[in-house]
């Protein structure tokens, strides 16, 4: 027999009550854990996917929308821009590299992105199997797309118009998978990549049967678009890296004032987005704190009530030689055990919920939300949980400490 066994015996004896307290407490801790993981993963993804992109140029509209659609592939694009205009920017002296993007189709919700090899370089994506696209209608799949849909090199797929599953489909456009990428841990894992011409080709066929003199798809670098003569063709946006940091001050103003396009800097927009999200995250945090407070109150009341039921037990323990301090510790230990169990369970539940969110919601998949992500702050959460539990058992423990043996035992 020792204090831990003794405290545990009491918790075991009112198992249902204990379980409810542990569960209630764990929900608060789980919410805090989800918030922690979510903010980490959100920021990590926002900044990692925007790495190497100084500015995005696209059709005028909401800058956040442009960033979301062109970098994170979640919102709809703001519209199209003419390749002829885009070319002026690609030749601009402040621009080190400009990667064209053509969006507009999906396969089972995975976006098909028409671009160049430079796009793959941004995410250090290499081909694991097969080759890069060399011709129109050839596709390279991101690692997650291939794995989740069980696609292999040589398979053909039919794309759908728009950005979500279930839109009108381009029948029999016969897109062929020629390659699969290594996992990169970035947005590239969940995209289907191809040349810009493929995107033009898909829509040409469906809109008008005019035979454009497209190259056969070998022109897959940024440079090659400068050489070609597709002035009437349109693309969705350009991902631009500057020659030097000074350009950040002038280039966006030039684009916004002198052209019909807009320039949006990911760094600025991501910060704005996080500020907007911050309000939402703060309210969830507040909600979590209310949950924790409610559960602490639950532990407090449960312990307080059990002190009333246990006044004879406590008096007997004193009679048997137990000191006041021993009884105090005995009660504190009970609060600590509940909160430790609740804290541990909450962290586990938080990770399970996070993994569930990542698996169940398509939008969350785009942000690579996962439960297999651990941070040192979780230890802090656990210690705080323990501290809160001890705090909530302080008053009941003091009552135990103050037990008047003779007075208690003479009341029968």
């Amino acid at each position, binding site marked *: *027999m020792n204090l831990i066994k003794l405290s545990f015996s009491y918790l075991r004896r009112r198992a249902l009550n204990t379980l409810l307290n542990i569960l209630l407490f764990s929900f608060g801790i789980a919410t805090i854990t989800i918030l922690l993981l979510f903010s980490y993963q959100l920021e990590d993804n926002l900044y990692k996917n925007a790495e190497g992109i100084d500015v995005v140029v696209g059709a005028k509209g909401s800058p956040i929308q442009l960033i979301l659609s062109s970098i994170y592939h979640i919102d709809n694009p703001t519209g199209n821009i003419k390749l002829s205009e885009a070319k002026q920017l690609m030749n601009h002296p402040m621009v080190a590299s400009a990667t064209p993007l053509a969006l507009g189709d999906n396969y089972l919700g995975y976006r098909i992105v028409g671009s160049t090899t430079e796009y793959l370089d941004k995410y250090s994506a290499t081909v694991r199997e097969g080759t890069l696209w060399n011709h129109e209608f050839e596709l390279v799949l991101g690692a997650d797309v291939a794995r989740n849909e069980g696609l292999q090199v040589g398979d053909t797929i039919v794309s759908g118009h728009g950005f979500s599953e279930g839109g009108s489909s381009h029948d029999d456009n016969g897109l062929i998978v020629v390659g699969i990428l290594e996992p990169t841990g970035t947005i590239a894992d969940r995209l289907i990549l191809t040349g810009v011409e493929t995107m033009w080709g898909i829509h040409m066929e469906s809109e008008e049967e005019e035979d454009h003199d497209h190259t056969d798809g070998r022109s897959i670098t940024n440079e090659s678009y400068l050489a070609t003569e597709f002035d009437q063709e349109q693309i969705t946006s350009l991902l631009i890296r500057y020659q030097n940091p000074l350009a950040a001050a002038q280039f966006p103003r030039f684009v916004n004032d002198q052209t019909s396009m807009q320039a949006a800097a990911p760094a600025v927009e991501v910060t704005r987005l996080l500020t907007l999200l911050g309000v939402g995250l703060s309210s969830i945090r507040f909600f979590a704190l209310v949950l924790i407070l409610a559960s602490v109150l639950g532990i407090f009341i449960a312990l307080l009530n059990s002190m009333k039921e246990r006044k004879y037990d406590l008096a*007997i323990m004193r*009679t048997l030689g137990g000191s006041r301090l021993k009884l105090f510790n005995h009660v504190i230990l009970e609060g600590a055990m509940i909160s430790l169990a609740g804290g541990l369970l909450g962290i586990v539940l938080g990770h399970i919920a996070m993994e569930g969110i990542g698996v169940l919601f398509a939008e969350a998949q785009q942000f690579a939300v996962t439960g297999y992500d651990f941070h040192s702050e979780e230890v802090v959460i656990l210690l705080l949980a323990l501290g809160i539990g001890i705090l909530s058992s302080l008053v009941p423990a003091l009552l135990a400490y103050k037990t008047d043996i003779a007075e208690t035992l003479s009341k029968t």
Partner: protein
Amino acid sequence: MGGVFSLCREKLREMTMIQLRDSHHRYNSGTEVNLPDLQVDKGEHLLILGLSGSGKSTLLHILAGILRPTKGSYLIDGTDLYSLSESRRDQFRGRHIGVIFQQMHLINSLTVKENLKLAQYMAGHKPDDSKVIRICSELDISDKVDTYTDELSQGQKQRVSIARAVMNDPLLLLADEPTSSLDDIRSGEVLSLLKSQAKRTGATLIISTHDQRVKDQFLNRVELDAQNQEEV
């Protein structure tokens, strides 16, 4: 001559287990209890008889070391119990005084065995399973060791409460109304159990009761009358 006297005094002190003098307790409620002087030798058995309200419980609580008398001195085995620090007194009580309460007050969250081991733990003794087993068999509760105490019959509870009181081989064994709710046969059984356990551990046994049936079984008796306690 002086040497002989001091030798006698020494001998007397060695023989004495309990010595209560000029004691008096005043409760916060204003109730005052005058306590009789007591001197009980080692291994001796004493019966405290009195009606309810005669101060029996107060006397027992003081003897048990859980109620400090407002006035007076109390020596147990030569130790002035109430001059010890509180934690020292707790320890002394746990190791040397066994108490059997009328209501038993067993801990229902624990099994019989755990209740007995709690007595060892609270007194600061090392766990001793063999002793638990031995005492359980002496008190005929061996088959109940893993039973929670609220599942026991009244008689079994009483035996567990006796077992708990003698667990640490006390110098002083106190019992509060151990027979009042029992029939004649049971009452006799419990008294002989108490006597035999006290004999085994060499403990001084003090029983407080209003049960007149017990009277004849004890040579040493103190009778308290209601005048001991007065409302002020």
